[in-house]
């Protein structure tokens, strides 16, 4: 009826579509993911499949996470990347699912191990008959190759996991003793080695896809080429789509050559990951039944809300993610331990865990999270919102109502940490309630936050930590970690730390970590704040989810 008017609109739209389609098609061709008929068919199949509910063979998982950059063990240092690597690859040893302390190690690709008395030479007997997809049998050379590669790449990838975990300072070299025996020779006595070896950065790679001196990155349209990990794990990475550097779709298929097939793993044949960019979207997806399981990050509010929802099941577990308050100790006011202690005493952790995390996190009084060896309640000594102590300490230094202690409290504002704004606000309130402290809240996005930290311009700032491996060794050093730029150093504490590394005697280690905590309370260079809980939400029909202290999600154990 409109005639040329319609024509105009339609033409406008069409031209837009055509032009861009041209460009996009061009892009897709040159990127090499031209859709073949087969692709389309499997695609149709998938869509049909996953719309039919109650298919035992597929588990759809929703998450707000995303692989940060790569699935290359020599680089990946983010939770989700590690989680995927764990599904598709294998380490020599791993922590027994459900382990309370995270210290019960079982062999995966290794069947046995022993260390020299000085803890500098470790021999591992390898499992025989483990096959790569192409039929090659896994052997000691693969182990050597993997570790040599990881360590060689450190200078190239200073922000990678092996660098972060200090492989360079720990490993001297790796020897192939026999086809099924490999020896690690260390630079230092290192008791938590099993922990390191269970970390994803120690995943065995497939030389065919893992060039010796180049990091492997995402290649659009070719899942296999996108990761160097040797597909000896329970699953294979069969699809990986990224858009704008963020995951859009990941599909895992059961590995027909998995060494532990006999035990009936993996229980579920296909895992499909759906990526939501915020907790709200994920929460809606699980309550609408769009996904079988929602893991990381359903917000505490939603979790409590979902607990009353009969259509879903909420799983709770042990958390090991901690946050702590750092002080810039190189200048006033925090160059004085008493000031730091005064602030530490005025903190009100419970208020935060109750109001911000609604009880899904717990106050932390030791840098080592509960459950792990060497966890203490040291900081409880300073009390919660213990204003009498605060006032008396600050009084000695001439701070009072009229002349309060003034400083900037910094928080990260781009969602890198959960609800950091609200936390900061409550910390400020608690501190100012003492009447002798005046806090100025400052915030920065994650990148600038790190820059500020390195430039040491922040008086006090909140930071977080996540376990690389389940051992106090991965936590205790935070008190003086150089990259935190607190400029706090304490030879005694470091000495204790090294001693603890040099012994397997757990009572002794417990004692040593206890001492470190004890001194930390006096020094307050870094003050533990809280340790998170862990939770996952699933449909009622999903079983055997282990949320243990390792924080690992082991998809191959899950059944529905």
């Amino acid at each position, binding site marked *: 009826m409109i005639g040329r008017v319609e024509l105009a609109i339609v033409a406008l739209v069409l031209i837009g579509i055509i032009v861009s389609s041209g460009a*996009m098609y061009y892009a897709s061709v040159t990127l090499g993911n031209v859709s073949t008929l087969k692709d389309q068919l499997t695609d149709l199949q998938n869509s049909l499949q996953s719309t039919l509910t109650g298919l035992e063979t597929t588990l759809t998982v929703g998450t707000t996470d995303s692989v940060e950059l790569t699935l290359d063990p020599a680089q990946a240092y983010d939770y989700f990347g590690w989680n995927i690597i764990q599904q598709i690859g294998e380490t020599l040893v791993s922590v027994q699912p459900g382990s309370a302390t995270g210290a019960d190690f079982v062999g995966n690709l290794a069947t046995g191990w022993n260390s020299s008395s000085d803890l500098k030479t470790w021999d591992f007997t390898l499992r025989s008959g483990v096959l790569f997809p192409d039929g090659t049998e896994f052997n000691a050379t693969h182990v050597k190759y993997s570790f040599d590669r990881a360590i060689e790449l450190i200078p190239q990838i200073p922000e990678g996991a092996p660098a972060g975990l200090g492989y360079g300072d720990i490993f001297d070299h790796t020897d192939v003793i026999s086809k099924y025996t490999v020896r690690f020779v260390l630079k230092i006595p290192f008791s938590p080695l099993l922990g390191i070896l269970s970390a994803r950065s120690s995943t065995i790679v497939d030389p065919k896809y893992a060039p010796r001196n180049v990091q492997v990155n995402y290649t659009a349209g070719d899942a296999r080429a996108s990761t160097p990990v040797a597909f000896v794990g329970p699953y294979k990475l069969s699809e990986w789509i990224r858009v704008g*550097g963020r995951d859009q779709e990941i599909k895992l298929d059961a590995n027909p050559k998995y060494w532990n097939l006999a035990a009936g793993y993996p229980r579920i044949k296909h895992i499909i990951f759906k990526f939501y960019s915020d907790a709200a979207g994920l929460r809606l997806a699980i309550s609408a039944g769009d996904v079988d399981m929602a893991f990381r990050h359903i917000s505490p509010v939603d979790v409590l809300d979902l607990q009353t929802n009969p259509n879903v099941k909420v799983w709770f577990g042990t958390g090991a993610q901690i946050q702590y308050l750092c002080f810039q100790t190189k200048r006033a006011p925090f160059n004085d331990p008493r000031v730091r202690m005064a602030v530490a005493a005025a903190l009100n952790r419970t208020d935060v865990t109750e109001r911000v995390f609604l009880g899904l996190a717990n106050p932390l009084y030791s840098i080592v999270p509960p459950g792990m060896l060497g966890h203490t309640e040291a900081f409880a000594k300073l009390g919660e919102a213990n204003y009498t102590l605060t006032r008396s300490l600050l009084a000695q230094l001439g701070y009072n109502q009229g002349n309060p202690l003034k400083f900037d409290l910094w928080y990260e504002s781009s969602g890198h940490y959960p609800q950091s704004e609200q936390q900061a606000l409550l910390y400020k309130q608690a501190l100012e309630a003492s009447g002798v402290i005046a806090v100025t809240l400052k915030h920065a996005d994650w990148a600038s936050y790190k820059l500020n930290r390195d430039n040491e311009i922040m008086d006090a700032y909140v930071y977080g930590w996540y376990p690389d491996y389940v051992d106090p060794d991965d936590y205790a050093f935070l008190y003086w970690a150089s990259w935190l730029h607190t400029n706090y150093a304490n030879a005694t504490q470091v000495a204790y730390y090294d001693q603890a590394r040099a012994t397997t005697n757990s009572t002794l280690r417990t004692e040593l970590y206890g001492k470190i905590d004890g001194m930390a309370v006096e020094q307050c260079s870094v003050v533990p704040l809280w340790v998170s809980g862990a939770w996952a939400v699933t449909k009622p029909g999903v079983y055997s989810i282990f949320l243990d202290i390792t924080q690992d999600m082991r998809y191959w154990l899950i059944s529905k």
Partner: protein
Amino acid sequence: MGLRSYVITRIILTIPTLLLLLTAVFLVMRVLPGDPAALHFEKKGDPADVERLRQILGMDKPLWQQYINYIGGLVDIGYLRQHGYPNLGKSMYQTSEEVGGQVFSAFPATLELAIYATIIASVLGIMLGVASSKSYGKTPDHLIRNFGTITYAIPVFFLGLIFQLIFGVYLGWLPTGQRISNVAPPTTITGLYTIDSILQGNIIAFVESVRALLLPSLTLGIVLSGVFLRLTRANMLETLRLEFVTAARARGLQESTVTYGYALRNAFLPVLTMMGLQFAMLLGGAVLTETTFSWPGLGKYMVDRINFRDYTAIQGAVVMFGLFVTLVSLTVDVLCAYLDPRIRL
């Protein structure tokens, strides 16, 4: 002059504008507080590493040279042919990744949203505009005008949130995020899910992608319909008072023919021209809409990267937006030229 020569001159005219735009973006992005390269590192800000990053990003060179490389990269056809996207440099946050690739992978989402929003906005806006101009000064006219004014004052993301609240949370009818849910996305051909799914005869995917599109495009469309409404109304009122409209009536033509074939048909050209300009506004709204509906498009990409101070990425996104807008306004002008017989001789 023929249509062709008009088009050519029009294209030539856009070049300086584009160049200016690119330069502006470049300058803004280089006037940074702090050292972008140093931002990258989680643990150690080791100067050597920072230097390495600088080299990767070519920031060790003097500014003018960086500028040359930047412009040069954009017009590097060889690179384009090899990768299928222009050279926008490497991402600061994911140094191994090409910004061009990331931007191009995110663009279709934005394009699809923009297209459907434009359709909704223009159809809604024009229809209402015509209606109100026909009932000038009467109640419907006032109602429609107020609607227009209010849409103008609603923050697009607020409307989006309300829609999510109603249709997502309470009624649970429509997905509140993502381009497609429940099923795997169709294989990439155009990158527009609705088109691709049809091309592949994948009905489920089509339905799902439309469901996902509904809320975002409605939000954006409604907010922008106000502008189109206003334009249409004003131009209609102008045209309705011209003599040829009365003459048409005097020839006994149906009122609908007079309204659309005569009045709107003539009022439409200026409206269309303005639409070209408004498209920029639409893209602005798209950024917020994408953030609200976690729509994996260019806007969301840009907002995400702000958190990482990934300036090369932000720059790339902004450039892409610029190119898009230029392309559209070009198309619109050419379309007007084609539709207006008076230009065509």
